[in-house]
């Protein structure tokens, strides 16, 4: 215990180890926070839910903070509904039904046009459906008629797809034409306060327009952006953290501890047990590791835990067992083991209390250094589309980005976010591991 404390204090002398520890603590904090605030089912719902979950988000929008580095600021998504502050709503009754006039107001300061302009209506009626007229009022007071149309129970009006509107705004695509400054020759955004007026009429006594929502899809979204399905990438980025840590730590811990135990048992008992363990190692080294994992993933189960166990099983009898064996063979000959044997210590006691503890200085750095490779293994499998079918992981994001041509289409944030996190996780464990290696194996310190 004293020794451990001393080693830890020594670890803090290495700046790289300190950076590594800070990073690991940060990642663990993110994981715990994510698990508390977005429980698994909620995460799965947000990631697999469908259009009603992420319909309000823009498509492939980079994160908001990319605006800090841009001279031309991209717009954020603007959402206004009947309850939003600043929206004036007037409902006046008519002989049959009612007349709803809603005026939405929003400030537009971005230098670029929005991705899309939508109006979503929900209404209730029996036979005759309500009718809406929508007007667009620019900061310089021009009034542009957007559309006049009947609406159903759930209707979405997409300005971008309105050809008549396109003609009215001078042949420009509506999301550009509505925001364009008419006084200048070239295309530029007229900044200021815009108003959208919705004038709705219903034609039955109980018929009402329940909700009318104005959505201007921006070109940046949230802290992490969205993917091609409009999903908020923050879910995958946040949830990827606990998964990556759990996978990396479990796999590394499982494989190194078990292979050490097997090596110790083989060396201590010798004979056929040793021979059997060595043969199994050779066979498992002959098996193509990645191909077997891909086969298990394709044929049997894509669940991340199945993959994890197969990984551990295949790596227990990997090359590390040979290294451990060679060292155990030396340790076995040391006098203290002979003494223990002489006073009648049981085999289990010798293996677990005398042989294995001697190896802990070698085990701990190896274990920490092994974590990055397993974190990347999960990403590798996910990038082969063998990731967990339900949970969002960093590897899955990379796979989605790759298969949607993120690099070719310039959606760099999409691939860089999970990649940077993978690198950070890998670096954190590698830096701590290298320092641990130098502390526990002082021979390395001289060279």
């Amino acid at each position, binding site marked *: 215990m004293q020794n451990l404390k001393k080693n830890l204090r020594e670890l803090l002398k290495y700046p790289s180890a300190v950076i590594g520890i800070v990073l690991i603590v940060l990642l663990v904090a993110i994981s715990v926070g994510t698990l508390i605030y977005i429980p698994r089912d909620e995460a799965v719902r947000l990631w697999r839910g469908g259009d009603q979950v992420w319909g309000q988000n823009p498509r492939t929008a980079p994160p908001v903070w990319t605006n800090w580095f841009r001279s031309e600021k991209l717009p954020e998504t603007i959402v206004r509904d009947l309850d939003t502050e600043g929206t004036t709503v007037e409902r006046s009754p008519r002989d049959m039904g009612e007349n709803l006039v809603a005026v939405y107001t929003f400030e537009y300061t971005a230098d670029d046009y929005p991705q899309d302009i939508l109006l979503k209506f929900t209404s209730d009626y029996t036979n005759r459906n309500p009718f809406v007229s929508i007007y667009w009022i620019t900061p310089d007071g021009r009034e542009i008629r957007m559309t006049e149309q009947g609406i159903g129970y759930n209707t979405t009006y997409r300005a971008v797809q309105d050809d008549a509107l396109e003609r009215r705004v001078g042949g420009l695509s509506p999301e550009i034409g509505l925001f364009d400054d008419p006084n200048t020759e070239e295309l530029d955004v007229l900044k200021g306060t815009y108003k959208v007026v919705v004038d709705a009429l219903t034609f039955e006594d109980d018929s009402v327009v329940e909700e009318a929502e104005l959505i201007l899809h921006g070109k940046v979204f949230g802290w992490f952006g969205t993917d091609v399905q409009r999903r908020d990438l923050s879910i995958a980025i946040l949830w990827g953290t606990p998964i990556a840590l759990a996978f990396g730590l479990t796999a590394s811990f499982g494989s190194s501890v078990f292979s050490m135990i097997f090596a110790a048992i083989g060396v201590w008992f010798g004979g056929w047990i040793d021979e059997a363990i060595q043969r199994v190692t050779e066979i498992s*080294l002959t098996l193509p590791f990645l191909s077997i994992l891909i086969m298990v993933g394709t044929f049997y189960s894509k669940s991340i835990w199945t993959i994890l166990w197969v990984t551990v099983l295949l790596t227990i009898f990997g090359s590390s067992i040979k290294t451990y064996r060679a060292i155990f063979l030396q340790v076995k000959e040391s006098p203290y083991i002979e003494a223990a044997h002489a006073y009648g210590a049981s085999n289990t006691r010798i293996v677990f209390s005398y042989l294995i503890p001697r190896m802990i200085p070698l085990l701990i750095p190896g274990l920490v250094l092994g974590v990055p490779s397993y974190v990347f293994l999960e990403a590798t499998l996910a990038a082969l589309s063998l990731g967990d079918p339900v949970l969002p992981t960093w590897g899955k994001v*990379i796979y989605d980005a790759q298969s949607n041509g993120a690099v070719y289409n310039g959606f760099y944030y999409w691939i860089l976010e999970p*990649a940077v996190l993978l690198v950070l996780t890998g*670096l954190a464990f590698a830096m701590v591991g290298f320092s641990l290696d130098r502390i526990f194996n002082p021979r390395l310190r001289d060279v």
Partner: protein
Amino acid sequence: MSVEIQSPGVGAEAEAPQTKRRTESTFSRVAKYTSYKLAMLFLTVVIAVYLTILIANMGGYVDEIVRGQIREFVGQMLRIDPNYQQMDPEEKNEFFQTQVERAEKRYGLDQPFVLRSFRYLWNAVTLDFGYATLMASDTGSRQVKLIIQDRLAPTLLLIATSNLILFFGSIGLALSLSRGYGSFWDRFVLAMSPTSSAPSWFYGIFFILIFAAILRWFPFGGMIDSPPPRTQWAYILNVGKHLVLPVGAIITSAMFVSIYNWRTFFLIYSSEDYVEMAKAKGLSANDVQNRYILRPTLPTIITSFGLLVITLWTGSILTEAVFHWPGLGQTTLTAIGLYDTPVIVGLTIIYAYLLAITVFLLDFIYALVDPRVKIGSGR
């Protein structure tokens, strides 16, 4: 093992080991050791291949899929063909059974899976790869051998290029670093060594992003432009251009840790007394390096070279996929995706044999380069 029993030398040795050992000729010792080693390696390969066959057939589950398909097909035939609709139900049922049995026999499904798995194993071990179920080679052949042959050259090109540069480059750099211990570059490599925890495909994505998407210096992927250039020189240049990014990715991912490990290794050897002695004698730095540092470390260098070849062989699946390189890695991926068992097994066999041959050869190379090692002794 059987080879050992047939050899008369072994029996004699067992009777009088004390006297025999001294007179035993080098030849018989090497022969005995070689045959034992070969038998063990062969056994390992056989078991590994058998395990692959079991996994690739899902322990016989793929057969169930085929059986279901046969029944569905025969049933459909009976339902649709007007010739069979006149039959009475009992006759129809009997006809159905015989048809299914015939089809199963044709696919070899009449034998239990265990028996068939051994037949697959025999074919695999005797390098009879058979025919793919779905995949085809470039010339349209179903032969697994041809499918693999098509893809072998691109994979070897990629692996050999990156492997050789990586290996000799890192040893050369490590040697110069080990001389200038503690210098800026030494600490730089030390600081960069954690970068090797990321696999090569990962660097590949970044390389594509930087050098293909933004700078447009190199192509995004593939092995050759389409249409390929006409002259031979242009062709080679074009392949070389496509080779830069994948090779760069493989080298980058392994370079720093490789240099670091070699440098540590050489440092340990250069602090030996005989090296100090050689330096004291006034030998030139190059002489010390070649005779007193490189010579004793040669066996380790060779081993790691052999193992490096094998690692890159498996590690190239995703790098090939990311760069759309038409090699064996991509083939493995496609085969698994299509449940094409014969191709998967074929690829595994080649891998297992290559590994076994490497391990086998390493022993002899050891004995060649290290006079202290004697084959077959001290075991």
